């Protein structure tokens, strides 16, 4: 599994890329591989705010439906609209084109609670 060094992770298999005060959020390579063929992402397009550990949508694969949880609190500045017609990109590029939402962080202290790449690798048994 691919676990990029520049990201932080959650126990629920989301990642966040922090650039300045902006966080880009997605699901990990491990998560997409466990889910298998992803067919839908359901995120309310009018979503304005997320909280740390809060549910912000669902992701649906052929086999199962799974909830999405935000790693951090923040104001939602973008939702990846390309996913509504091509969610399978999460399988092929979970850390790139397959990103889910971008937020403006409202409490950067929360980042300390997240898993480092090493800790996440340990969680997924690598």
């Amino acid at each position, binding site marked *: 599994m691919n676990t990029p060094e520049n990201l932080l992770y959650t126990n629920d298999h989301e990642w966040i890329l922090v650039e300045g005060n902006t966080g880009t959020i997605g699901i990990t390579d491990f998560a997409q591989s466990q889910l*298998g*063929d992803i*067919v*839908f992402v359901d995120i309310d397009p009018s979503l304005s705010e997320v909280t740390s550990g809060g549910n912000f949508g669902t992701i*649906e694969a*052929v*086999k199962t*439906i799974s909830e999405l949880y935000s790693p951090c609190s923040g104001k939602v500045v973008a939702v990846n609209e390309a996913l509504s017609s091509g969610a*399978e990109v999460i*399988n092929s590029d979970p850390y790139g084109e397959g990103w889910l939402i971008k937020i403006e962080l409202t409490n950067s202290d929360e980042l300390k609670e997240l898993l480092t790449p090493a800790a996440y690798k340990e969680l997924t048994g690598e």
Partner: protein
Amino acid sequence: MKQTTLYKSHQKHGAKLVEFAGFAMPIQYESIIAEHKAVRNSVGIFDVSHMGEVFIRGEKALDFVQHITVNDASKLFDGRVQYSAMCYEDGGIVDDLLVYKISDTEYMLVINASNIDKDVEWMNSNNNFGVTISNESDEYSLIAVQGPESRNLIEKLFMTGFPMEYYHFTYAEFQGREMIVSRTGYTGELGYEIYFKGNEDFANSLWDAIFEAGKELGVKPAGLGCRDSLRLEMGYCLYGNDIDAGTNPLEAGLGWITKLGKESFIGKDAILRSRQQGLGRKLTPLIADSRVFPRHGYDVMCGEEKAGVVTSGTLSPMLDKGIALAYVDSKFLDGEHQLSFSIRNTAVPARIVKLPFIQK
């Protein structure tokens, strides 16, 4: 967890294994959708060794098979296969199965993996015919080769012509061992199923040989995930989802295999009664004209009223639309009612269609 003889091949191909009917089975290798399309467009190979094989032997083998199954096995000749079902006295379904006529005194019944113990017990408790009921499920492996290129693959593998008709079987040899090859499958495509006894080494070298023969044809290993979406595009029933002890063959749309003109068989009286009373519900093929994923257990609605429940559903990889089999209350089936899938509290319009969902 039990392993099939092909476990090593699954590991080699990077299968994702899940527990199914007590076996570690490949649900997918690379992608359910990619494997589904490979079977529709070229050829896929499945390990379905978890299926059960029970041999009925004896002078009265036909009488026994006639007694416990709903279809008319007297129509079979050596080398012919028939889709059938076993019912309880109350008409509920014990299992659906394939009946292979090997000879006048020998039949092979192919049953669902999760029902093997229950089925064999049922057969034994109804053996008033002095037949031998031999459960050889653990000795037999089963590989399904399915897809429009399957005939080319099979002919290359066995270096002989296979002009076999649908639901017929013959024998072929691999490494000196005789195997049953039938033109059957659960995908709706041209396809073959190969039944064989043999250890791991034999099974894996056969698998490798099939792969080698199919290389230029674009063969892919295919898992149980796509087997389910393939059968559903055809509208084939899955035991445990669409049929079980609480459903009778007529409401399941299996009237075509239920030969009520046959002298007697277990469940006949109850099935006749239910036909006279009128069926309260029917297994109904429904399609949404949008890209949705109806799932097992979702409600079928007519306005605010619940009209039925989805027993199998998927986002059809070929149609890119939601398709489902659902038990729908008969009063909603007069063509006057607009039905919908209730998908996480959203009503998605659904139309009743004729099977199969895809044009074959």
